[in-house]
């Protein structure tokens, strides 16, 4: 009978959602791994159906992410950017503020980092001590300017009721346009045909440890993980973090507990923007060694939204999510270069992987909502 079928299907759904709700962190990690494998399997079927060799594709997928020192360095480099920008998004989303402007904050922070180092360089000694000093100056400049560029839409939201999603997106365009103009005109490298700033002095940069490859340093990865740890502590063990999280969960309860909602929005946006600025400091100091035309920079700030959502906006979970994104991103470029599989197909498969990893988490969130909704009284 259809009625029993229906209730059978429903109880199966109930059981699945109960199971998902009860899942431990380790189990959830296992579910994510299984999802990745299933998605890759499905992707290989698509590759085969499209007439390409799936075995070679799989090989390229793996080799492209971790196959050699060079690609592994690239994967880790991209991952660090995804992780830091992902954390920037996560803190804002946790507080119920939708900062879509991480890209803009990243671009502004990057220019501030590069220019402050270039301006300060003549006043500091040229040795490694001076380099550290310059890097500190650049990092602070990036964090402050990113923070201010985040604070601005925060102020607009708090005191003028302007929707932050819209203002931050608009400010992304403004940031890219203005920074692009600045690099094209006043800050352009003397005599260069490229749109880029002067290169940073030789004593600025992270030391190549383990990986000889330029553009990635283990120091950068360590700093990234340290930042994640600091943010996690801020969120869970400080008053500021508690105020932010409470505002995100239940704004009215936060106000009841004495949180000034307006100031909290501004503080959250500043914090999120500052983290985005730190991402760009890493980008400039560790990778580019100068700042380039911002329109040509990968859209870390937008991808970070997906990274953060995949991590359920948990700063710690952003690390594996960022690594996954970094690996896929690295593989994509590898496959594009070393095989004739069209880029659209690769993007589609990457999309499936992300979808498969995200769906169990989405189900979990939905089940959580559904269960709480039913138990009134």
């Amino acid at each position: 009978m259809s009625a029993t079928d229906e209730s059978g299907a429903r109880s199966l759904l109930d059981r699945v959602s109960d199971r998902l709700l009860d899942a431990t962190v380790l189990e959830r990690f296992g579910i994510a791994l299984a999802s990745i494998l299933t998605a890759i399997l499905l992707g290989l079927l698509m590759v085969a159906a499209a007439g390409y060799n799936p075995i070679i594709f799989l090989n390229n997928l793996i080799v492209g992410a971790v196959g050699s020192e060079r690609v592994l360095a690239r994967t880790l480099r991209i991952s660090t950017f995804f992780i830091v920008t992902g954390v920037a998004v996560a803190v804002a989303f946790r507080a119920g503020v939708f900062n879509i402007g991480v890209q803009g904050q990243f671009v502004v922070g990057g220019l501030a980092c590069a220019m402050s180092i270039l301006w300060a360089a003549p006043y500091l000694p040229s040795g490694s001590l001076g380099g550290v000093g310059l890097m500190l100056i650049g990092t602070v400049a990036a964090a402050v300017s990113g923070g201010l560029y985040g604070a601005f839409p925060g102020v607009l939201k708090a005191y003028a009721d302007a929707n932050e999603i819209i203002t931050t997106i608009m400010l992304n365009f403004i940031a890219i346009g203005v920074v692009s103009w600045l690099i094209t005109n006043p800050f352009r490298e003397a005599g260069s045909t490229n749109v880029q700033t002067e290169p940073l002095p030789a004593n600025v940069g992270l030391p190549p440890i383990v990986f000889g490859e330029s553009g990635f340093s283990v120091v950068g990865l360590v700093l990234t993980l340290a930042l994640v740890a600091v943010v996690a502590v801020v969120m869970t063990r400080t008053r500021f973090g508690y105020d932010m999280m409470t505002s995100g969960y239940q704004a009215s309860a936060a106000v009841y507990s004495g949180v000034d909602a307006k100031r909290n929005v501004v503080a959250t946006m500043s914090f999120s923007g500052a983290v985005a600025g730190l991402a760009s400091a890493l980008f400039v100091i560790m990778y580019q060694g100068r700042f380039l035309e911002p329109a040509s920079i990968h859209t870390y700030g937008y991808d970070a939204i997906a990274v953060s959502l995949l991590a359920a906006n948990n700063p710690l979970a952003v690390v594996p999510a960022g690594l996954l994104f970094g690996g896929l991103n690295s593989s994509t470029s590898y496959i594009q270069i070393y095989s004739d599989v069209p880029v659209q197909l690769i993007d589609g498969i990457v999309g499936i992987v992300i979808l498969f990893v995200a769906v169990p988490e989405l189900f979990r969130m939905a089940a959580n909502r559904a269960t709480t909704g039913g138990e009134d009284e």
Partner: protein
Amino acid sequence: MTANNTPPAVRLEGITKQFGDVVANDSVDFTLDAGSIHALIGENGSGKTTLMSILYGLYDQSEGTIHVNGEERSFDTPRDAMNAGVGMIHQHFQLVMPMTVLQNIILGHEPVENGLVDEARAREDIEAISTRYGFDVGEHLDTPVSELDLGTRQRVEIVKSLYRGAEILILDEPTAVLTPQEVEGLIELMEDLRADGRSLIFISHKLDEALAVADDITVLRDGNAVGTVSASETSEEELARMMVGRNVLFDSDARETTIGEPVLEAEGLRVIGDRGLEKVSEVSLSVREGEILGIAGVQGNGQTELVEALTGLRTLGSGVVRFDGDDISAMSRRDRIEAGIAYVPEDRHVEGLVMEYDLVGNGLLGNQTIEPFANGGFLDWEAVREHTEEIIEEFDVQPPNPDTEAESLSGGNQQKFIVGREIGHDPDVLVASHPTRGVDIGSIEFIHDRLTELRDEGLALVVVSSKLEEIQKLSDRIAVMYEGEFIDTVDPSDVTEEELGLLMAGQRLSGEDEVSGDGMTEGEMSEGGVSEGRMSGDESSSGVET
């Protein structure tokens, strides 16, 4: 009660429902005789709503059978239940606010003529139902539901069920939102429905109402049916004992207390509400040490805004608030908390608790700047946990586990936790808004006792409630609020519940002028007057006098 050959309207046998490890209903039997009113009573969290949700197709039972009119049935959805003639009026109305009454009633059951909604026929049918039971719903068919007061909304819900052919009606705590006069109207209506051959299940935790209206009463406790008694053969005391499992004292005598200096004072307060309308007009008050000031009134007459102005959640339009003699009118909420003004908020689900936090996370709410929980900017979760455990212990919060999420606690336990936390601030003033709304009888007693104890310890308290019994029992003075003003301040021992009810409806006691001044008689007052008052309280359409 039943004719021998009529099967019971509803028979539930051995119903068990588990949510994870929690047993909400444990092998419950329940029989609703055809053409009778059966009250289902029990404390919050005793499983009343769960049991009825199973009957109504919202949940599947884990075990047990459902018979409706003698036939075994299983409802997967409320629509199945409705098709079998079972209707449910939820505690939180299921109405679409911007849509008209007519649209709400026919929603999902629209009479269709040539593919179009046959509104004329719907109108006719609804008016027929409306006239039959003397409803005023027929007059409001084209009014958006958002413009109606709660009592009328409830009648819309009832008409909706009747329109859909409900022979068996489940009313989930229908009196919770009504004034005493409106409750009387509802009871009459339920009796009319019964006289018409319909069968009703009345969920409540108010013993007097169950006794007044029901033929039979079934008591649930901790998911078990404790017993079913005939209303004519039982008493409030017996029912309370069945519900709580021990004896309950109904009237604790108000103790004599020494009243000290004024602690919290307000002068000429004007407060603007969310929609830009003045909700509090020229209110002045003073609460002294060792005193409970009760603020009575039908909801929506400005109590919420007044309390928010006192606690720092809403800015003043004009006027002054003083605490210990200092002007705190411009002081932030945070500073007022730290100064010693504690607040048990009106809506625990929205303000008082973060539903997704565990109790430790909620134990910090409002305490996040206070030592020892905060050390500079850092939080000491160990200290918070200890404090939470103390609250749980002292206020008998069930389950006694600090890691429980707030939302999985029953209403009474949530409320006990909030009261415990707020008192834990060691305040000088406690403002408690509807401290026992939706709370079971055992917890009500407990909370009342704690509030009077605090008063005896010299705290100044402001208690806002629309429950007359509560206001009368707790208060040393009662201020009645109507359309943003205190229309009278009375001594609780000098007024009857009826007199308070009339004051709440905007009518001054005999010999004084009515506030509304439109010459309504007492009889009209009990029906239309209250709705009128509430509507203008919500909408301020009539303008508030000074």
